[in-house]
């Protein structure tokens, strides 16, 4: 347990640890209770290729995550992954803003590690509900050049929404790219700002999933088509990371 609702879990999987890209996820079978059929998608938070260790960070929201949070060291867990299309980091990038909100911060750790390895100058903008919900700050500070924290209640860092700080920062300096992950309302603002300030932006989406591998078409998100219409893409296979200008974030998309 790392905050009152957030848990960290580490498990061994060489395949995942060696092959994971930032933004990819694992699909976890909830152990024990056979009335819960579906796997749970959880972002890969970090990997240690030498040891084969994979880290995830998750919030307890329902039955599945509650059972996961009660697992003990040594238990075996059934995990598929790494799945999905993660963040794309091109060689040309020199500077990046990484924007995360709440439990959407999880996948950003591995992203920042990779950005750092590539010498990208990273500003991390992280929003939390309150001081109690904050986790992993030291690590983010190690992995980035600057960390700006906001809390809804002002109990740590700036009071307010992370997107307010983002807008202020964009007014100062435009990064080569933005990466975002968090609740839908946050993503909507990020999407708008990316457009206004013409900064390319990748965002990681969430949707309820079945197979997690692209076969069942339940995890759709609306993506603009050249003809001005849209089509449904699969969050699990075509995403979870999409370019902000292509996705349509409407009410139907559920947040974390």
């Amino acid at each position, binding site marked *: 347990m790392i905050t009152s609702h957030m848990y960290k879990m580490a498990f061994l999987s060489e395949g995942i640890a060696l092959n994971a890209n930032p933004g990819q996820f694992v699909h976890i*079978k909830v152990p024990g209770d*056979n*009335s*819960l*059929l*579906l*796997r749970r998608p959880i972002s890969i938070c970090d990997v240690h290729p030498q040891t084969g260790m994979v880290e995830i960070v998750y919030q307890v929201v329902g039955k599945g995550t509650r059972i996961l949070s009660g697992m003990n060291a040594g238990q075996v867990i059934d995990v*598929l992954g790494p799945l999905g299309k993660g963040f794309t980091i091109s060689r040309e990038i020199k500077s990046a803003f990484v924007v995360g909100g709440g439990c959407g911060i999880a996948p950003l750790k591995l992203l920042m590690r990779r950005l750092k390895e590539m010498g990208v100058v990273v500003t991390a903008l992280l929003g939390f509900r309150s001081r109690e919900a904050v986790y992993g700050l030291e690590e983010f500070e190690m992995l980035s050049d600057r960390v700006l924290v906001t809390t809804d209640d002002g109990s740590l860092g700036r009071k307010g929404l992370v997107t307010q700080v983002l807008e202020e920062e964009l007014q100062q300096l435009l990064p080569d790219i933005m990466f975002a992950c968090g609740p839908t309302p946050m993503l909507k603002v990020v999407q708008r700002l990316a457009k206004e300030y013409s900064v390319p932006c990748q965002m990681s989406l969430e*949707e*309820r*999933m*079945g*197979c997690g*591998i*692209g*076969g*069942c*078409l*339940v*995890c*759709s*998100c*609306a993506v603009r088509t050249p003809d001005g219409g*849209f*089509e*449904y893409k699969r969050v699990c*296979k075509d995403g979870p990371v999409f370019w902000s200008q292509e996705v349509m974030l*409407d009410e*139907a*998309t*559920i947040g974390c």
Partner: protein
Amino acid sequence: MKPRLDVEICGVSFKNPVIAASGTFGFGREYAEYVDLNMLGGIAVKGLTLLPKKGNPPPRIAETPSGILNSVGLQNPGIDYFIEHELPELLKYDTRIIVNINGNTIDEYCRMAEKLRDVPVHFLELNISCPNVKQGGVAFGTHPDVVYDITRSVKAHAKQPVLVKLTPNVTDIKEIAIAVEKAGGDGISLINTVLGMAIDAKKRRPVLANIVGGLSGPAIKPIALRMVWEVAQVVSIPIIGMGGITTGEDVVEFLLAGATAVGVGTANLISPTACIDIVNQLEEYMVQNGIGDVNELIGGLRV
């Protein structure tokens, strides 16, 4: 001795009775990364329509006790795209291919059957039971007369044997099945999903954007078994039984009830290797119970 697993449906032999059910296995490609598709009895491809179809808005899936609800709404790239781009990939594998077709009108079904005449697939599966489309869809599957008409019309246009996939959301599945047989249908797939609904008590909203969806998975297995059993008593055309199969023993139960082969749907969403695991478990059951030929099980329920 290795038991015999092969079964025959309308003169087409299947290496084993396990078929990936429509809509849960894409066009096979995504699963090829995880399993050898050559080991499957057959693959029923994602439901196709004459023109491409967007499907319903998300969320399209909800979890219910031992079941799931889906409201995909037949998202698919259209039959022409399938024939041109997806089928060639599938044809690389040695397995039976069942093309699940869906129309808003009887004429649409017939036109799709025409388009498939010279295409090397093994079966057509008329889905007259999808609960997730407004027009046609489930309505077709609930009246024996309509079922008779559609089956007869499509038979007149189809080259391949025609399976008719029935909805469980009817008062009397037997009269529907009899209509299929009378109209010359070659086989019956059942069951499609049961109409259901999930509500999020905290948000006070339906979980699915479409409000209602189709229930599948182990929760509906007793309903499916009952319908397969009922239908097997009144028709003599083969039945592909499905609904909640997740293990080899489940397959045995459907065969005993009268199915010649089975479809595995939701289980593919839980594990990409489900179909193959199930084939292996079926073989294991047969070895343990001294059954040399899977055909011995078909309709073998002792009542």
